[in-house]
């Protein structure tokens, strides 16, 4: 057993009940890993991100600027955080921040952050508008998808062979099932306002949703796959409860995807299974899902695997796939003293370490 005694920064502390970011669950996995004895630094974008205030999982917490503030603002803030915390490994957990983080990898490396991320090309390949291309490479089915920039499409799409209901999606987040052109145009405007262009339209696939999470080693192998069937979802379609499964066709399809693009880093494969048992690829997310704690439940601590890879260690051998392990998510109120909230709002963080070598100089 090789103990990792390192400081790890994890983004995505927006653990909101109806649509939680994965960061807090990733921190929880690491905190419970006997092979991890380091510190965890929680990174969020909003002073109300719940994970920032959970001392059981985050030793210190900081706010990051939104991606719209630009690369320089992000690097400045990460530099400041690095001076305080001497972070060894950075684990980004949100789709929207991945392209920026990957672009800034040389600068992050220079600052001392280790990572284990996909390349820009791998990220582009799993973009929602390129899924059919990737699905074909891996030999699995995929619903038709089209990138659009004008809501007028929805009033003439039936002439092009599309039929309602359709799914209208953002490039990074957000999805609406729409049943008419007016509904679709409304969803288009909402998504464009929040996530920009293009907006994606996808044929609706009926069936049950199954997900798989794993870590790609960058050489075409899929490490420690954990498969899950959603048992209950929130209003936003996010898993509220799920059960681990062991399904060879889903595993084979996901392994083929990872092999086709030599995926590097965590990923989540989302598929729909129709009544005939055939899979349709819906999405590939370049990060762990919010339900990643199920990986601990089935004896495969995938965030630990990622940490081992990021630090050049050999991943711990995986136990046999365990089907029939449930998770049931719940919401809890954390009591936060106003001084803690004030620290995040005014100082951009809490429990911040003193910058080494700069204190008590005056």
């Amino acid at each position, binding site marked *: 057993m090789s103990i990792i005694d390192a400081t790890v920064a994890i983004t995505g502390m927006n653990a909101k009940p109806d649509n939680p970011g994965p960061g807090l669950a990733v921190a929880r996995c690491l905190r419970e890993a006997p092979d991890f004895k380091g510190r965890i630094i929680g990174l969020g974008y909003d002073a109300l991100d719940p994970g920032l205030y959970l001392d059981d999982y985050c030793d210190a917490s900081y706010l990051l600027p939104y991606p719209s503030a630009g690369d320089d603002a992000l690097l400045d803030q990460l530099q400041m955080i690095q001076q305080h915390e001497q972070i060894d490994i950075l684990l980004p957990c949100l789709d929207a921040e991945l392209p920026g983080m990957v672009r800034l990898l040389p600068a992050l490396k220079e600052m001392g952050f280790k990572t284990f991320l996909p390349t820009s090309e791998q990220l582009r390949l799993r973009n929602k508008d390129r899924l059919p291309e990737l699905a074909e490479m891996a030999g699995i089915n995929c619903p038709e998808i089209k990138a659009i920039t004008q809501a007028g499409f929805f009033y003439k799409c039936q002439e092009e062979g599309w039929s309602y209901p359709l799914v209208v999606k953002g490039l990074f987040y957000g999805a609406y099932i729409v049943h008419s052109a007016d509904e679709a145009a409304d969803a288009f405007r909402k998504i464009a306002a929040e996530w920009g262009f293009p907006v994606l339209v996808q044929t609706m696939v009926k069936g*049950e949703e*199954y997900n798989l999470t794993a870590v790609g080693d960058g050489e075409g192998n899929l490490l420690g796959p954990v498969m*899950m*069937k959603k*048992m209950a979802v929130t209003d936003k379609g996010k898993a509220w409860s799920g*059960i*681990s*499964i*062991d*399904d*060879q066709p889903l595993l084979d399809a996901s392994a083929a995807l990872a092999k086709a693009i030599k995926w590097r880093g965590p990923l989540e494969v989302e598929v729909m*299974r129709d*009544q005939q*048992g055939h899979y349709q690829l819906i999405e590939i997310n370049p990060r762990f899902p919010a339900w990643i704690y199920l990986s601990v439940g089935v004896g495969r601590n995938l965030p630990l695997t990622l940490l081992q890879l990021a630090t050049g260690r050999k991943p711990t051998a995986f136990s046999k796939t365990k*089907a*029939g392990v449930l998770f049931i998510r719940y919401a809890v109120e954390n009591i936060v003293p106003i001084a803690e909230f004030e620290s995040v709002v005014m100082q951009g963080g809490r429990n911040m370490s003193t910058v080494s070598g700069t204190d008590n100089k005056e």
Partner: protein
Amino acid sequence: MDQSNENSSVSGSELFPSSDVLSRLAVSESGFVFDPASGHNFTVNETGLVLLRLLLKEPRLDQILETLRDEFDADPRDIERDVIEFVSALRENVGA
């Protein structure tokens, strides 16, 4: 003439979920059944449990009906109808 005997010449292989699907099912004493591949779960009553265990052991409709006729004091036609209904529901639950 016994109608049920005539119908029970069917082997059952075309009615039953495949043996691969049946053998992967986790069946508990309480009647709780879990399919580890699809993630589906469902419950069966005491009679259903007997039938499910028979299916796992002997996937031939004629032999299953014979065993059930020996074990249960019921009209053979009712037994056959119930078995076919059960198998149909089972197929739906395991998606096979």
